[in-house]
């Protein structure tokens, strides 16, 4: 009996992951609508903040657009985590374990689902941004970089969700980490640039929070154009989180699929 090749396995699992993500509108619609809703409310509500001396732009909408991408990634975490925990709970993971499937193929397949949702989100938020007048200072090339950075962020958070799912095997635990991820988003330069944060301890937390740099990376492309430092830090933080989360997920998968 012939074994399927790695490429074929990855392809099949990726296809399954994507199909499955998009057959759950109850997961996708909030992932698109919520960040947009919050964007709309915040931009209008906080527009006067742009009058603060030192505020980098006179459109709070332009400033806040970056938040949507990161918020979208939180939903990615939820979606990935829920899907993976369902596989554990239904025993589907056991079924896959009994085939010649390689673990790495399963992992890459899962990632495909995360990236597919992430891409739809990134394009939607970008589209809305442009349509409602937030010009992307860095132009079309900048928009592509935004998509790339956004995908990397989604990957990182998606893997966090998958990690929790594999480690605990429980959908409830996945829901439980949502507040923590939310906190990570809030305790950053989400609402104001870091140098305009008055409160010392808050500023310190924001300075150390990788999410601040992810936001600032995207923000810089929208507001300032090509800012090498912001981009480098943004990609480094997003990449770092993604790498650690991926490693953790791989390890958790090895334990979960502990076939001999």
């Amino acid at each position, binding site marked *: 009996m012939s074994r399927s090749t790695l490429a074929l396995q990855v392809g099949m699992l990726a296809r399954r992951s994507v199909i499955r993500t998009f057959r759950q509108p109850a997961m996708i619609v909030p992932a698109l609508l919520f960040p947009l809703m919050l964007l709309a*409310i915040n931009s*209008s*509500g*906080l*527009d*006067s*903040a742009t*009058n*603060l001396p030192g505020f980098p732009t006179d459109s709070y909408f332009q400033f806040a657009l970056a938040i949507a991408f990161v918020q979208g990634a939180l939903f990615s975490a939820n979606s990935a985590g829920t899907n993976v925990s369902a596989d554990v709970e239904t025993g589907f993971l056991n079924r896959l374990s009994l085939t010649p499937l390689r673990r790495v193929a399963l992992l890459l397949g899962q990632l495909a689902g995360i990236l597919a949702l992430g891409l739809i989100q990134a394009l939607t938020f970008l589209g809305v941004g442009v349509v409602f007048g937030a010009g992307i200072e860095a132009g079309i090339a900048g928009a592509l970089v935004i998509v790339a950075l956004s995908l990397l962020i989604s990957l990182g958070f998606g893997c966090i969700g998958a990690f929790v799912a594999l480690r605990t095997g429980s959908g409830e635990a996945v829901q439980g980490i949502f*507040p923590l991820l*939310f*906190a990570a988003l*809030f*305790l950053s*330069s*989400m*609402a*104001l640039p870091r140098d*305009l*944060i*008055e*409160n010392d*301890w*808050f500023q310190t937390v*924001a300075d150390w929070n990788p999410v601040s740099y992810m936001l600032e990376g995207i923000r810089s492309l929208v507001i300032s154009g090509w800012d090498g430092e912001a981009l480098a830090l943004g990609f480094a933080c997003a990449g770092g989180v993604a790498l650690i989360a991926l490693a953790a997920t791989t390890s958790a998968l090895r334990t979960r699929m502990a076939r001999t």
Partner: protein
Amino acid sequence: MSRSGFISVALAVGRRNVHNYFTNPAMIVPGLLFPMFFFTAFAGGLSRVDSVPGFDYPAGYTAFVYGFVLLQASAFGGIFTGFSIARDFESGFSRRLMLAASRRSGIIAGYWIAAITRAMFNILVITVVALVAGLEIAGGPLDLVGLYTLALLVNLGAVLFGSGVAMRLRTMQAGPAMQVPAFLVLFLAPVWVPYDLLVGWVHAAATVNPTTLVLEAGRGLIAGDPTKVLPAFAAALGVAAVSVLWARGGLRSAERAA
């Protein structure tokens, strides 16, 4: 006879729900978590905003945010009780309640007892946290009585709204149907800056939103500078009155289905 039936039913339902709440961390945490996040993130991170020209709130930004968070905790204390009601319907427990209760409107009153208890607990915790974080309340005792009464009126409106939804839908899927309107009502208002500094469509929405009145009155009471207190109470009572009708309709719908 019917009066004591109402009270005994209400107390029984209330006691059970309060007991469930305090013995179940999964129920306590969400109601506390989101207001606290908000408070921390915005009092901490956005405080510079009070330097914006036109922002004159004498009590400081921490108090300004506290005003909103107080409202949020009260409202969501009611909404989350609505979740509990939905869960009871889904599990079938409500059917038992409705069969056993001599006066069914007592059941709603019972849930309100639970909601108000939850709200008071949440408000207490959040207020302590805010005080530790540097909140300065300039208002006198009468102002505070007014402030917290207003908060509890909001809680009443919220739980009645939630119970009306829960009793009509009778499933946990009712969650979003309660959360989304509550969220919109809370946020289409002067959340981060005073009403005068709002622009665009949010300004328009806030103009017709009763939340705006309640928020401004609440903040005034915190600052010891009461403003629009009577209109705010009127708005809150009005919402509560409409919600009573909504809840009664929901009870009737549930009775028909039971």
